[in-house]
């Protein structure tokens, strides 16, 4: 009985905290219900007037996971190998470097080790005397010709970190422009970014938005005559590859290139292929014997949009010959706007360059009148318009877009800045809102049902003691939700399962205590003494068993991803709060009930 003042104080304090954090959710829920009951103008007006309160509340409510409210979860991975090549001086042309990078990537994947470490090890293994500093220099980071490989490795890791940070910022800007409530963007590991977008359903659009590096480049195109002659050479080469070919017609039929590729050779168009076959074409044309047949300093790039559709409904993309020298980059773009073509009304993006860019642009267009200039975004040719006059005002535009939406997204990507390296989507989860709602319902229903079953059983089995334990159980659920709201944890579907499980296990502490009290009573102790020693003797079992369960919850939290983390959080919150409620709160009630006469409480 002594010391119960402290216990009561704690209980009231915790209760107040839990209620304080949960009232935001209740108020938000009521507000949302009210807003939904309104319609049309009154609704917009009301939302506008209460904007501040709504967003204030939204920040503090119990978050629902994407699996409950619908939305999209994407894990992106920064292309570190590409970053390393881009950072190196003349990186793409040095075969030693590119080979080492590729090999290091495979090894790091297989052994789950750090890619940069593997890269350095491999580089040193190839030539123990070689220095990485011949590729990497940085005045700001004090990386000079004399820097050791370890220093360069540290520099590269720093660059990777900052690339991920920059990528996160850029993605945040893009998503904000796209308009998503409460996006959640966090770094994961060395080179991954987890993005959570509640309510978003248009996954294809978002995918393009996240992935686009926004590397905008202006290239001159190849000479048509040169291109044509190398095309002829290449076709002949592949004809000869098939030794069984007796004459030219049979060879043409068996030509591996012509099976997947339609040669064109008009102006700057090298040929065409379907999207499915483009990878095959790339690998055939990428053979080193074939590459030497291409005109010097010319690269082949696919168009972003199909140029024609065949009779059987296949869409064909053109392969364009462009000079590999980059004349201008997207850095010079000062402003980009979605617009419509004056004549065809097709959507396009018009861009304005800064002063420096405009000067270069003017020189470039002036020197290349009547020749095409390719506008390349992320390695795909969007347009290759013929220059008609010298352009002095730094204007240019990207045409060949399929919709206004695409134009808007492109502007968004261009204005948010270029990603430091490409991002790959390694995991994506999309949950429809209707399925989320169904999950909430079934989760909620089973929680209530489970709760009722346990509560009734406890009363039947432990009589008054059981109803005290049930009271503790109610507090327990309130506390769990309060803890989650206070720590801004997210309630997921497996999380609800965690709560249901906690309900089953929460009574455990009380079962331990009550069983113990029964034993003490059987041993002939008085009710008061039995209660005292029941609580005292059950304590070590309760503590030990809960700590082990809590430890597994913590392990689950540190290794699991997304929804599973949610499960671990509710499990841990459940253990903490059930310990408190089962030991402290029931004791207060039992002591209160037995203050005058001990028979006021019974344990079945």
């Amino acid at each position, binding site marked *: 009985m002594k010391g119960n003042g402290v216990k009561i104080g704690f209980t009231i304090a915790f209760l107040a905290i839990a209620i304080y954090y949960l009232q935001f959710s209740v108020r938000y829920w009521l507000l949302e219900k009210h807003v939904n009951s309104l319609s049309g103008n009154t609704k917009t007006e009301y939302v506008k007037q209460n904007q501040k309160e709504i967003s204030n509340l939204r920040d503090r409510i119990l978050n629902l996971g994407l699996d409950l409210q619908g939305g999209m979860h994407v894990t992106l991975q920064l292309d570190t190998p590409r970053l390393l090549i881009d950072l190196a001086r003349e990186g793409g042309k040095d075969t030693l470097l590119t080979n080492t990078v590729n090999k290091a990537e495979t090894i790091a994947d297989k052994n789950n080790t750090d890619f940069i470490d593997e890269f350095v090890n491999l580089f040193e293994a190839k030539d123990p005397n070689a220095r990485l500093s011949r590729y990497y220099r940085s005045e700001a980071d004090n990386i000079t010709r004399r820097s050791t490989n370890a220093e360069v490795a540290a520099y590269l890791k720093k660059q990777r970190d900052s690339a991920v940070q920059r990528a996160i910022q850029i993605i945040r800007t893009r998503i904000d422009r796209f308009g998503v409530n409460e996006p959640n963007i966090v770094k994961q590991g060395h080179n991954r970014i987890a993005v959570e977008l509640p309510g978003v359903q248009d996954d294809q659009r978002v995918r393009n938005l996240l992935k686009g590096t926004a590397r905008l480049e202006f290239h001159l195109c190849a000479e048509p005559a040169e291109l044509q002659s190398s095309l002829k050479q290449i076709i002949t080469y592949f004809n000869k590859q098939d030794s069984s070919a007796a004459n030219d017609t049979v060879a043409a039929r068996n030509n591996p290139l012509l099976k997947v590729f339609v040669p064109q050779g008009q102006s700057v168009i090298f040929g065409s292929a379907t999207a499915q076959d483009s990878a095959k074409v790339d690998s055939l044309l990428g053979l080193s014997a074939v590459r030497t047949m291409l005109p010097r300093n010319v690269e082949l790039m696919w168009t972003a949009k199909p140029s024609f559709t065949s009779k059987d409904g296949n869409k064909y993309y053109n392969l364009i010959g462009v000079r590999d020298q980059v004349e201008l980059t997207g850095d010079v773009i000062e402003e980009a706007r979605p617009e419509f073509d004056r004549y065809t009304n097709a959507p396009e993006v018009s861009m304005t360059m800064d002063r420096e860019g405009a000067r270069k642009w003017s020189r470039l267009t002036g020197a290349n009148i009547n020749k095409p200039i390719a506008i390349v975004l992320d390695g795909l040719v969007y347009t290759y318009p013929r220059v008609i006059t010298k352009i002095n005002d730094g204007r240019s535009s990207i045409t060949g877009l399929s919709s206004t939406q695409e134009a808007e997204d492109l502007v968004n990507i261009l204005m948010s800045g270029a990603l430091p390296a490409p991002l790959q989507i390694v995991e994506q989860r999309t949950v429809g809102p209707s399925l989320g709602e169904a999950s909430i319902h079934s989760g909620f229903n089973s929680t209530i049902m489970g709760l009722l079953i346990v509560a009734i059983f406890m009363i039947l089995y432990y009589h008054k003691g059981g109803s005290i334990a049930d009271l503790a159980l109610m507090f327990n659920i309130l506390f769990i939700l309060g803890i989650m709201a206070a720590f801004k944890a997210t309630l997921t579907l497996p999380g609800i399962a965690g709560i249901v*499980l906690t309900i089953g296990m929460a009574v455990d502490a009380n079962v331990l205590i009550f069983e113990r009290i029964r034993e003490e009573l059987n041993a002939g102790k008085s009710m008061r003494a039995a209660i005292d020693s029941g609580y005292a003797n059950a304590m070590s079992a309760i503590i030990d068993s809960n700590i082990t369960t809590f*430890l597994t919850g913590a392990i689950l939290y540190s*290794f699991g991803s997304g929804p599973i983390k949610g*499960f671990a959080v509710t499990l841990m919150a459940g253990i903490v709060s059930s310990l408190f409620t089962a030991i402290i709160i029931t004791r207060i009630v039992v002591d209160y009930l037995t203050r005058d006469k001990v028979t006021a409480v019974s344990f079945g």
Partner: protein
Amino acid sequence: MRIFENANINFIGNRKLWYLISGTVFLTAVLGIAIRGLQYGVDFKGGQEFVVQFQKTANVTKVRDVLTKSLKSQPEVKQYGSKTMLLIRTEAKGTQTDVEDNINNTLKQSFPDNQANIVNSYIVGPRFADTLKRGALYSCITAVFVIFIYVWLRFRNWEYSTGAVVALVHDVTITLGLFTILDHHLPFSMDLDESLIAALLTIFGYSINDTVVVFDRIRENLHLFKTEPLDEIMNKSVNQTLSRTIITSGTTLFVVLVLFIFGGEVLKDLSFALLIGIVVGTYSSIFIASAIALDLQNWRASTYGKTKKAKASVR
């Protein structure tokens, strides 16, 4: 109402029988895993998984046939909860957008009078799947290790730690084996995925919880009955905690059963794993964990030449 009041069942004395039963089931589970191999879900294998909502009842075989043709590889197609929802899982090549568009278009063309909509999609790259798999493996190993250390610290006795951990491995292997053997035979997904790992770790926690309560009682009784032999003390302790073990397991089993029946499609495999795990975990805490601790102590006593049977070495 009281159950198992003053129970006096000879758990420890009959331990050879329990070893036989457990050993048989355990070996069956191991054999099942060895023969069929672990059935990985999308999380651990990589691939693409879609839930498609049809307007009317969908014909699983027909959907599988048209998709096999258009994807150029056979997808896994099965009902998902209701007759109008299908789960489609594929490892077809191509970018995510391609596969999703392919499925969307194929279904719209093949079933014009039964509109299909992709309501859920889950896509995991093969490399990321490896990362997830590794994480899961590490978490299981760490859990076993941490629990071993904790029990050892609390009871200052490695035999108890070993008994607890053997019971854990026993429970998890049997659950995993049952899932592997039953996969594709029950109307819900039983693949090894992240939520199953969550269930397995929860079983870890649950099983150790029961075991520790028994051990705690043994520790207490060792101080109370200093003259009695260890096997009798252990048996007494298991019996004394029996009603608590059964009641807690019963209430937990009940709520998990409710979750299994009414919790919706997504939680089916998680709750089913918990159901099995709780039953097996309760069994092992009563029949296996203490028995192993006892035999290990006896073994140590005989090996190191102590004449008396192992005695209270637990603090």
